[in-house]
């Protein structure tokens, strides 16, 4: 799709970075202009380092150092073995624990469900962009859940999905037997992910709408003149033109799924039923707080960190690649 190259970037992160660089260099230039005394020169030479120092210190002291401590801690024992090195003992225990395996499997499930989580806001944004009747109304309504805290969302859906709740009552009036939405291990995880998507797709929708704002309307008109159906328009015009927006939403949705489902899980299922809705985060919390196994929890955190690192690197790679296309 040749049009892709002429599109302005829709990546807010990269735009912000570029803007920041411009401001810095402008400041530098204007700072270099006035009277040049030797002391002033020296101060100005060190000024950039001093100015970035707080950020570096905060990152090193509050991020990197604790991270290293955590990794180091994951190689020590718990309880009576507190403080003694146990090598990879915690990691061996983790991978032998069926509960942690379930947690990792659920991460895999999230990755598989990712296209759904991206397609829903994508499609809805498309409809809003194509001005379906009531599109203004939908645009604001879709964003509503995004401002609710996961705890509130979880509590609402706990009530809706309860065994004697309204959803089963509605199904019952159609003669369909009640389903234990949050009590059946084969269904519960899908319900939690579904609710998470419902609660967060508003944000992705906004990103998509921003992407649409950069879409050349002439293309759509041309496609319509050529007699393209809606499906063809979506597939051959909209998706290629928004490829970088889609990539961005993919990465942010993935991170959102991996790191911010704890609240929902805690409220809706607490990891149950039968441990079927565990995610690494919940597992870490449980081992640390409930089982008094901080070292084991550190090992699980290290593994979650590795997973996030892969996702993060993937993100950087994707963003760099689309950056080069500019």
């Amino acid at each position, binding site marked *: 799709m040749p049009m892709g190259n002429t599109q302005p970037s829709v990546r807010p992160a990269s735009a912000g970075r570029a803007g920041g660089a411009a401001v810095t260099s402008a400041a530098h230039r204007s700072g270099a202009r006035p009277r040049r005394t030797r002391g002033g020169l020296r*101060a100005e030479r060190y000024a950039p380092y001093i100015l970035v120092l*707080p950020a570096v210190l905060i990152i090193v002291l509050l991020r990197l150092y604790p991270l290293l401590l955590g990794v180091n801690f994951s190689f020590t024992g718990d309880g009576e073995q507190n403080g003694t090195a146990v090598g990879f003992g915690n990691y061996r225990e983790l991978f032998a624990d069926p509960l942690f395996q379930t947690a990792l499997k659920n991460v895999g499930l999230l990755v598989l469900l990712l296209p759904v989580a991206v397609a829903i806001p994508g499609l809805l944004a498309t409809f809003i962009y194509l001005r379906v009747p009531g599109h203004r109304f939908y645009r604001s309504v879709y964003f509503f859940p995004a401002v609710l805290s996961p705890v509130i969302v979880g509590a609402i859906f706990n009530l809706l999905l309860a065994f004697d709740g309204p959803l089963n009552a509605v199904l019952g009036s159609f003669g369909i037997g009640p389903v234990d939405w*949050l009590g*059946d*291990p084969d269904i519960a995880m899908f319900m939690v992910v579904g609710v998470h998507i419902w609660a967060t797709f508003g944000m992705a929708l906004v990103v998509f709408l921003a992407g649409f704002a950069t879409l050349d309307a002439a293309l759509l008109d041309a496609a319509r003149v050529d007699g393209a159906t809606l499906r063809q328009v979506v597939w051959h015009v909209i998706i290629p033109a928004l490829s970088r927006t889609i990539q961005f939403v993919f990465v942010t949705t993935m991170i959102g799924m991996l790191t911010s489902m704890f609240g929902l899980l805690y409220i809706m299922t607490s990891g149950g039923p039968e441990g079927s809705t565990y995610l690494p985060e919940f597992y870490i919390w449980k081992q640390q707080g409930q089982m008094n196994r901080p070292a084991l929890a550190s090992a699980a955190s290290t593994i979650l960190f590795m997973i996030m690192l892969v996702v993060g690197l993937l993100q950087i790679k994707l963003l760099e690649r689309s950056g080069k296309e500019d």
Partner: protein
Amino acid sequence: MRQRAIWSAVLVVGLALAGCGSASDSGKSTSSDGKLVVWDWKSGEPFAKSYLEKAKADFKKKHADVEVEFVAQPFDQYYTLLGAAIQSGKGPDVMLFNGGGQIRDRVDALVPLDDYVAEDKQRLAGWEAFAKDGKTYAAPVTLQGYPIYYNKEIYRKANLDPASPATTWDKFVADCAAIAKAGSKCFALGNKEGVGIQFWLSSLGSTTLTAAEYDAWIAGKRDWNSANVKRIFQTWKESGDRKMNSDGANSTAMFNDSFALFQSGKAAHVMGLMSDVGHWQDFNEFLTAEKLGVMKAPVVTAGTTPSLPYDGGIGYAVAKWTKDPKVAADLVRSLSSAEALKAFYADAGAIAADTTIDVSAGGPAVSTIVSELKSGKPALHVALSSKTLDLMGRLSQQLLSGSITVDEVVKQLAASDQAG
């Protein structure tokens, strides 16, 4: 310009130093000479007010110069926060614990109190829940037990005699069929957290295991392959298969949805608690005292005698890093002094560890409970590690959904129990 550069440098360095300071100062010692810091999850509640006042007054008599600060932590984060404090070796001098696994897992960080609390041993009940390897680590404040409550009104509707509930399991199952016919569920069960099975195990333990098996279990010699241990899980499964439980037990929270089912008269029985929540005081309030009954566990294995399962519920312990353990232990003693506990019983509706308190004004249910304390025994599930309890919760959900056999359950539990 130079001025500005210098000022900004000063500002930046100052900020950076402040940053360093707060980073390295995060675990500031809370233990100083004239002050004791107490962590709990109760002191913020209105019902704890007069209890704390009485306890503080008692402590003031012994150590007038020592200041006491109570810090109420949110309960769902309590052990997470405490774990972090223990990990850093700094934190409160005195802290509240639940009896059983929660304190036994953390005795490394606590001071054995046996020498300090010897005088209270007779007056208070429930010490076992705070002991490990023969040493006591906390003084009980309340007792926590697992009586079976029943709704006399539903019994009447089902043409059963509310004055004499079933004494054998078979009769109980038959009664449940009659209750079902009258349109109510037999048990209000919430097993979302996997706690339902713990109450089941303890409530029916005394009438399923023989006395010898029961004592061996508490002493740590648990024979998971014994027919009677399996029987406990079989009755659990049976109650699910016979639809004796409220619907959707695996997605119903015990706290407090299942108790709400019982309170609102939708189920005839509930395995509840004695203190805090889901207890006689809550139920009295909704069902009224005359409709609320407490029954002995129905006999499952012939020849067994029902006894009330109970332990020390919550109790205060002393941290290893406190400056003067004697002073901290005195505070612990004040927190379980007779006057303070009387206030706790009156305001919170908890069964206090001091069994000499008069409860006759609380209605027939609480009188029954207190009268059974003498013959009571420690609860079976409290003896298990939190890891095994967690596993048991998940396995119990599988038993209800029919995706596991009883044999497999006891096999996995035995493995977990022996490892821990």
